[in-house]
Every structure is written in structure tokens, then in C-alpha cells.
């Protein structure tokens, strides 16, 4: 009996999967045509997509970039053989002629470098905060100086204005250090704030005009009335976002505080602001304040709007962060206490890093909401992109153009909001220390 058994001594090489289950075909089979019902749905979806695109794509690809009026656009469309009716094609001439206005409003054109520089430097200033592991740590000093550079670049004026504003903080800090060492912390804090207020309200004005007469360095001032378009939206958005986060943290902590007056002040502020629509606050800023102030007082309209939008964003931010605080187990607070940390150390080292991480999606969606809410200022007569779209339509050449303007504005807003949203996802992944 021959004992010849067939035993394979080496593995067969892997065969490629059958073409019907690999590559594009395989993917399509698995995801699109995996059964008669799914096949049907896929075909129906394709039909819908085709109809939508066949309406939109020719509209977008209309050869009207050089048009100088709606009538001319229509002639160009007719010449190009496209249907010139309402849905026939876009009139992109309006964007070509007005996009700079939509970006900068009425800002003097020879000074466009200033807002551009302000926003480029903003990216530099944000880098150490947003991407702390990728840039030199020293850059944080620039971030600290940036809040003073930003208004100076946009509004112009003597260089001594922002310097003296910054000096107020330095003075407050010095006074705080000296007094708190000789007396108590609280007296130091109060004294520091008082001295800073005296500096800002009384002395800094004198110092600025004195320095300016000795050494007049500065940029050409630009009035707030000249601000408009996306520059206005971004300015309001950035200021509101940058101020509302720290203020919101303070409010959230104040709301959880054991100090009764602090607690009820914070609760009252948050509930009042959240209970009032933003548009009401803007009307207060634009009309009521005007009536309260004596005739002839010129309290900058954009400053008023900035304050109101910041207050509004702060109230929402405080509640988002309170959510993060509430999500922390009690053990974290007790652990911090057991380490002998005082209140501020515990907040800084234990509580806030965790609470803020939990709140990131909420914080970013509040940011995005605030940025989009800036378009409401068009209702009080500021020419933000939406207000400008109305002003552009009031030009007899462009009267009747709707979709092109709104589409362009929507696209730009989408870019900013999508960017913020992607960053928040990146940040969540980076800080992912979860227990999964």
C-alpha cells in the first residue's frame, strides 16, 4: 500500500478577490446595489442628484463674468444660447464689480493693507493658542499684545492709545503685587483695579495727547462708519468670540459660587441676557442708548454693537461651560481639595482642563452661532454683507439680483464656519484621553 499522501508544503499565494467584490465595482455592489430595494433607492437618488445638478451647474457656469448690469448679463446669456429666463444663468458681473466692497465695505482702498494685516496677524496670534504643540512657546507674548494691535490697525490713530491702554494692565498688576504682599490679596485686587480705572479714565488721555505732541507716530484714523462687509462681520465675530470665552468662564464659575451676591449677580445676568433676543439688544444699542445720551455725544455705533454682541455671547458661553462643569464627577473636586490646592489652583489645574474639553463642541457651536448672528446688524443700518447686498441691489444696474449675492455671501460664511467646525473636531481628537 503506497503511502503517498498529498501534503502541500507551501502556502498558495493569495488570489485577488473576484472583480465583482473589489475595487469600485465591489464598493458599489456592497454600498449601492446590495439588494433590489437598495438598488431602487440608489437609482432614485441618482435621478434626484442629476436633476438638481443639471439645474444648478449650468446656472453657475454662465459666461457673464464681465457683465456690467443685469440687462447686459441677460444679453450675454442670450448670445451664449442659454435660456435667459430667471433660472437661465447667474449674473456674475455683480460679484466681479462688488466683491471688494463686500469684503471691506467703505474702508479707504489705499488702506486695505491694514485689515488684511490685522487678520493675518490674528492667525499668528492664534497659533500658540490653537496649535500650542506646533509653534514656539515664546509666540504667546505676541498673542498677549495682539488685543492692542488689532484695534489700532483697524481704527488707526496715535500709537500711544493702545500702548497706554496696555499700560493700564501693567500698572494694575504692579499695584496688585505690591499691595497684596504688604496687605491682603483682596485689597490688592481692588486697589489694582481702582488704579487702572483712574489711569484709563483720567490720566491716559492726558498722557496720550502729551506723548502724541512730542512724538506723533500713528496711522491715519478710519471712522467706524467706513467699516462694512465681511470685515465688519469678522471684526464683530472675533471680538465677541475672544471676549466671551473668558467672561463666560468667569460667569459659569460665578454661577456655581458659594458667595451669594456673586452667584445671584451671575444668575441674573445670564438669565436676563438669555431671555432677550439679540435683535432687541442691538436695538437698545442703536436707538435707546442714543436717547439716553445727551445730544451730540458720539458713542461709536460699532463699539456699542460689540459690547452687546459680546454680552449676548457671554451668557450662552457661561451656560455651555456650566454644562462642562456639571459633567465632572464630584471626586475631581474632592481630589483637588485633598491635594491641598486652593480654589484658583484647583480650577486651573484640575477642573477647567477637563470641563473645557467636555464643552468643546458646545463652545465651538456657540462661536459659530455668534459669527452668523453678526449679520443681524444689518437691521440697525450697519452695512454688513447682508446690508450691503441690499445696497448693491439699490444700484439701478444690479436691481433684481438676488441669488448671486446671497450665494456668494453664503459661500464665504460657510468657509469660516466649516473651518471652525473642523478645528473643533481636530481639537477633540487631540485631547482624546477618554476611557474608551
Amino acid at each position, binding site marked *: 500500500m503506497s503511502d503517498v499522501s498529498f501534503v502541500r508544503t507551501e502556502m498558495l499565494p493569495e488570489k485577488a478577490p473576484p472583480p465583482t467584490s473589489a475595487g469600485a465595482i465591489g464598493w458599489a455592489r456592497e454600498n449601492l446595489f446590495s439588494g433590489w430595494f437598495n438598488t431602487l433607492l440608489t437609482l432614485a437618488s441618482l435621478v434626484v442628484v442629476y436633476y438638481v445638478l443639471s439645474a444648478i451647474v449650468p446656472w453657475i457656469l454662465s459666461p457673464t463674468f464681465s457683465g456690467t448690469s*443685469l*440687462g447686459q448679463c*441677460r444679453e450675454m446669456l442670450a448670445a451664449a444660447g442659454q435660456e*435667459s*429666463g*430667471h433660472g437661465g444663468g447667474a449674473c456674475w458681473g455683480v460679484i466681479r*464689480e*462688488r466683491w471688494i*466692497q463686500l469684503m471691506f*465695505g*467703505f474702508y479707504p*482702498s489705499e488702506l486695505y493693507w491694514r485689515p488684511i494685516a490685522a487678520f493675518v496677524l490674528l492667525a499668528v496670534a492664534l497659533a500658540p493658542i490653537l496649535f500650542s504643540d506646533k509653534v514656539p512657546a515664546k509666540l504667546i507674548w505676541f498673542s498677549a499684545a495682539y488685543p492692542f494691535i488689532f*484695534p489700532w490697525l483697524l*481704527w488707526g490713530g*496715535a500709537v*500711544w*492709545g*493702545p500702548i*497706554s*491702554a496696555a499700560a493700564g494692565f501693567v500698572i494694575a498688576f504692579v499695584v496688585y503685587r505690591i499691595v497684596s504682599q504688604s496687605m491682603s490679596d483682596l485689597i490688592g485686587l481692588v486697589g489694582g483695579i481702582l488704579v487702572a480705572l483712574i489711569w*484709563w*479714565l483720567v490720566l*491716559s*488721555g492726558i498722557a*496720550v495727547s502729551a506723548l502724541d505732541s512730542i512724538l506723533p507716530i500713528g496711522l491715519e484714523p478710519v*471712522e467706524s*462708519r467706513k467699516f462694512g462687509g465681511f470685515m465688519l462681520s469678522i471684526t464683530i465675530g472675533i471680538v465677541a468670540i475672544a471676549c466671551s470665552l473668558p467672561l463666560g468662564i468667569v460667569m459659569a464659575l460665578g454661577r456655581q459660587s458659594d458667595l451669594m451676591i456673586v452667584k445671584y449677580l451671575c444668575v441674573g445676568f445670564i438669565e436676563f441676557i438669555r431671555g432677550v433676543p439679540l435683535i432687541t439688544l442691538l*436695538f437698545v444699542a*442703536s*436707538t435707546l442708548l*442714543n*436717547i*439716553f*445720551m*445727551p*445730544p*451730540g*455725544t*458720539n*458713542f*461709536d455705533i460699532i*463699539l456699542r454693537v460689540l459690547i452687546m454682541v459680546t454680552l449676548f455671547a457671554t451668557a450662552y458661553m457661561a451656560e455651555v461651560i456650566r454644562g462642562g462643569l456639571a459633567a465632572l464627577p464630584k471626586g475631581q473636586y474632592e481630589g483637588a481639595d485633598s491635594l491641598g490646592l486652593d480654589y484658583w489652583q484647583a480650577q486651573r489645574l484640575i477642573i477647567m482642563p477637563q470641563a473645557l474639553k467636555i464643552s468643546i463642541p458646545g463652545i465651538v457651536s456657540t462661536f459659530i452661532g455668534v459669527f452668523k448672528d453678526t449679520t443681524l446688524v*444689518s*437691521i*440697525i*443700518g*450697519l*452695512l454688513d454683507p447682508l*446690508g450691503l447686498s*441690499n*445696497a*448693491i*441691489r*439699490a*444700484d*439701478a*444696474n444690479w*436691481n*433684481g439680483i*438676488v441669488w448671486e449675492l446671497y450665494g456668494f455671501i453664503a459661500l464665504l460664511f460657510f468657509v469660516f464656519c466649516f473651518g471652525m467646525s473642523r478645528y473643533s473636531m481636530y481639537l477633540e481628537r487631540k485631547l482624546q484621553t477618554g476611557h474608551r
Partner: protein
Amino acid sequence: MKKSVFLGALTVAGLTAGAAVAGTMDDVKARGKLNCGVTTGLVGFAAPDANGEWKGFDVSVCRAVAAAVLGDQNAVEFVPTTGKTRFTALASGEIDLLARNTTWTFSRDVDLKFEFVGVNYYDGQGFMVPKGLGVSSAKELDGATVCIQTGTTTELNLADFFRSNNISYEPVPIETNAEAQQQYLAGACDVYTTDASGLAATRATFEAPGDHVLLPEIISKEPLGPLVRHGDNEWGDVVRWSLNALIAAEEYGITSANIEELAKGTNNPEINRMLGTEGTLGEMLGLDAEWAKRAIAANGNYAEIFAKNIGEDTPVGLARGLNAQWTNGGLLYAPPFR
């Protein structure tokens, strides 16, 4: 520094509140700029061009006043106002003059404490319908759907008109003129009603303007004019007579082309008084002798301003109609310069 200015202003506010306003004219001269309230954009009446320069029929009134008072028609700060912010902006002193197609009504003049200094455009509410509807009079609109801007006097006028004619309608509320155009073209309403000047401007943007007709009925009086605050009569006089100078200039044939020549002196004493070669009219206003000359030279007389911004050769294409001189059967009638 901004903050110190603001807080300082608040402190000062407490001290000076209630103090009477110094003359607006002194303020304007000290500032070197006229703060003029305009709309955020209305075809033919006020709109910024691609360079951010404001142009339009109402804008020309601002420029004429600035030219008369400050000698420079570009010394104007245009403050865009909405229908909701315009009156507070004027009352609070944020603007010196409101030239924003605002209808002169009793309550605005008396109750809101403003002073309408004249009328620069006589408007009225009209109706636009598609030709295919086969309607030739607003009284045949029984049961029609009407696009109407909410919160305006046009809404009230419409209700009055339909009630007094005992016919019914269904309102389609809309917020802006742009929205109205879209809704009307999409067939969401049979009729669009707003001021006749606005209807003409809207119709001009249509693909086929001939397919739409404006009905003959004008159902309201909308005298639009510039206004100032109550109680500062010197300033009110300056604005009133700057406007009158534009209107009278048309009547006497003074145009931006021939004004230099006429300013050398003519046989017509009225022209001489206006242009400052005779009499002391400028001095009485607190201005120099050539105030009216500058106001007219800025953008021409009333007819020139009308023709350039909203006249029949522009896309808006309005006929003079009620806005012709009284000598031509219109309502424009400037009091004598004497």
C-alpha cells in the same frame, strides 16, 4: 483710549443731559461735515456705487445742503438708516438731516417732533399686475392675493382702499422689496403694491417689463421730503431754502451749465437775489452770499437731479407727473426769493 473716551462721555452725559442743543448749523460748521441720514439702499434715491460713493435723488439733497453750508458737496457723512432706526437717529442728534424718502404725515411732524422742510418727491401707492391677469383697474381686484411689505403705511392704505371699495383681498406679507420681486415673479401673489416709484424701478428689472402693467389708481398721497429736528428753526430754514433753491433754479432756468454766467448778474432780480449778486439773502440765513449758487452748482437744479437719478432716461424711468413745476401742471412751487 477708545474706552476712556466712551467712559468719559458717559460721565459727561450725566452733567450735560438736558442742556439745550446748540445750533445744528454751528455744530455742522465746527465739525466740517454734514451727517445726513439716507436709506440703506433704494433704487434711484440712494445707493453706494462700487467705489462706496453714495448717489441718488435723496443723496443730492444732502449734497446740496453740504455745498450751501460748508462749500463742499463731498463734506457729507452718509449714515445709512433703516425704517426702524431713522427717527431715533435724527432725534438723538446722530444725524443733522434725514433725507430718506420719508412720508410727511401729521403724526411724524407733530407727535414725533420733527420738521418737514418741504417735499422733494410726490409719490403715491400704486399696483402692479401681470398683463395676463386682464385687469385694468384696481377695483377689479376682488379676491386677489397681494404682496405687501409689513409694518409700513402701504399696508394700512391697502386695507383702507379695499374696505372702502367693499372688495376682498388676501395679503401675502413680505419683508423687503427684493423678496417682493421674487414672490411676485414666482406667482405667489397676483398683485404687488408699494410706492409708484418703487413699482417702476422694480418693473424695470424684469426680464420682460412689458408683460406687467401699473394700474392707473394711486390710492394714497406720499409726499416724501427731507426733515430736521423740531425747534432748531435756523437749521430748518437752511435746509428748506436749499431745497427751494433747487426747485426755483429749474423755474428760472438756472442750470449747472449756465450758473457761472448767470452769477455774473442778470436782468432778472430774482435770479440775482438767489445767486447773491443782489440783496442779502445769504446773510439772513447765516451763510455767505453764494450759498444757493453752490447748492445748485453741486448737482444741478431739480430737473437735472431728477433726470440723472430717476428720470425717463434712467432704468427707473419715472415721468415728472406731479413732480413737474407748477407752471407745467405739477405741484412744485418754490416760494419767492425776496
